[in-house]
């Protein structure tokens, strides 16, 4: 059996779960197994209803104590549910939730955990996985003969197509008590309403060449008209210009947008590994020898404070006088 642990936000399934269902279907078909989705939470029927075209079974682990994610409650509920099931692969979300939970599940279920898969293939009943090492400087291929917990790199896999509604919805009784939960969230402070940088189609990043925090508004404007979000290099984050949550690179996030625009970023190896999987790269830099140009599909050698306003002006003209943004 191939299992996917679903993640949702504001009653909407997350893109990472659709991608996990897409990858899970490939595994399930190649191994002749069923694809099952697990949704922990409360009041999940409407959400599950929309996913019956993508999974063969959708298990609802409903309990008031699962309404908000806590690793203690999720761990216990999933351990109780999965301990007597066959698990060829369990795909957990490649998000803060999955990264928090997976090592605990690995211990509870006595299964190994292999995070950050960027490729999946089945040959003669053996699952082959590729994943980045050293932040993506090296790609490793591994074979797994046994059961395992996996996570996928966001945007590395195609989302499951919406198939004919065929799945079965199954409610599972969950036993949890207040005392099971030791780690309790008091509140969640939303820092941004924007799309998470790892989920964005367009990322416009600034580096040391931005000169100061005040100049990032220029990148905000460019990102807005392209329907994207703003990122930053380590230099810009370490200088205190931008928060770490948007740092692209080895000690920040790995992003794979459709378009990555690097502005005033020289292209140190630790930055390159955070953006090298982008579909297209546009670089803007004063220094014609900056290593970032070796990573670029298109590059403009010039002063970004001249190039970007000009770029914004022309894009607005094409889009008809600067009407609104294309934000999802």
């Amino acid at each position, binding site marked *: 059996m191939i299992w996917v642990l679903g993640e949702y936000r504001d009653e909407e399934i997350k893109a990472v779960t659709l991608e996990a269902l897409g990858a899970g279907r490939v595994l399930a078909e190649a191994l002749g197994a069923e694809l099952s989705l697990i949704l922990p939470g409360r009041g999940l029927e409407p959400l599950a209803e929309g996913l019956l075209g993508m999974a063969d079974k959708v298990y609802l682990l409903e309990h008031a104590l699962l309404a908000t994610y806590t690793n203690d409650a999720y761990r216990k509920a999933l351990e109780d549910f999965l301990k007597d099931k066959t698990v060829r692969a369990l795909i957990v979300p490649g998000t803060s939730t999955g990264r928090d939970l997976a090592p605990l599940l690995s211990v509870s279920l006595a299964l190994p955990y292999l995070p950050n898969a960027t490729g999946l293939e089945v040959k003669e009943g053996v699952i082959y996985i590729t994943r980045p090492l050293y932040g993506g*400087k*090296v790609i490793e291929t591994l074979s797994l003969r046994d059961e395992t917990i996996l996570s996928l790199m966001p945007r590395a896999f195609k989302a499951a197509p919406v198939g004919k509604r065929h799945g079965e919805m199954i409610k599972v009784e969950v036993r949890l008590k207040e005392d099971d939960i030791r780690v309790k969230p008091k509140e969640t402070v939303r820092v941004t309403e924007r799309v998470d940088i790892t989920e964005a189609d367009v990322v416009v990043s600034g580096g040391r060449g931005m000169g100061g925090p005040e100049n990032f508004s220029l990148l905000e404007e460019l990102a807005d008209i*392209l329907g994207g979000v703003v990122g930053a290099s380590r230099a810009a984050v370490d200088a205190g210009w931008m928060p770490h949550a948007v740092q692209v690179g080895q000690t920040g996030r790995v992003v794979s947008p459709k378009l990555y625009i690097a502005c005033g970023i020289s292209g140190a190896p630790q930055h390159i590994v955070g953006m090298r999987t982008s579909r297209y*790269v546009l670089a803007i830099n004063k220094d014609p020898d900056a290593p970032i140009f070796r990573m670029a599909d*298109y*590059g*403009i050698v010039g002063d970004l404070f001249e190039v970007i306003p000009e770029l914004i002006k022309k894009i607005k003209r094409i889009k008809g006088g600067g009407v609104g943004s294309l934000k999802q």
Partner: protein
Amino acid sequence: MDIIVCLKRVPDTGVEIEIEEGGLETKEAGLPWVLNPYDEYAVEEAVRIKERFAGRVTVITAGSEGGEEVLKKAIAMGADEAVYVTDAGLKGLDGRGIAMVLSRVISKMPFDLILCGKQGTDTDSGMVGGAVAGLLNIPLVSAIKSLKVFPDKNHAEAHREVERGVEVIECPLPALFTAQKGLNEPRYPSLPGIMRAKKHEIRYLDLSSIGIKKEAFQSPFNREGLSHPALKRKGIIFKGDLGDAVNQTVKFLKEEIKVL
């Protein structure tokens, strides 16, 4: 407070990684090794808590070679004791195996708090901290950006980084926290610290002394190969006339990349 910090050595993030002939191992000889950057935040936080509330910071690492350097770095930053589990049987061990070793050692020590880096910058697995918490069955709070401890109440409050925001978390102690960048600004070791680290005696352990058999660590994965990522970039670079460069770029954005 008794605080334990788990450490790992990793190649400096600034260098390229070469692959050995045969394509199954990375070249390790000559690499500049450093204390994992996330572990540095963990050490700094532990030392700050000790400075505030008094107590003792013990750092531990497990591996087949080179652990002394990272332990000494932590001692130079202000840690008090260093434990090195080293054994040829630890070579190539995955995070679950390392967590088994560390938790076995830690379970025989007094502790109120365990700190780890949220992941190593080599494999980026983020397995060890969470698995140690799981094996010791203590609360886990991962990827924290701030930590407040209340030793008299056996209680802690942490800010944990999540997508689009921050979660404020409460938990009882003892507990394990994994450090995210931003938790603090690690200090540079002081000269007296460096001198102390030079003289400090590391406590050595091996697998048999902690009662674990090598056979317990059958890797569930077989490495089939290593490669460098293929780069296929167009490399069209505009110099000179700004207006022309921007016009061409906008054309690509519209017609080829199709974001307009």
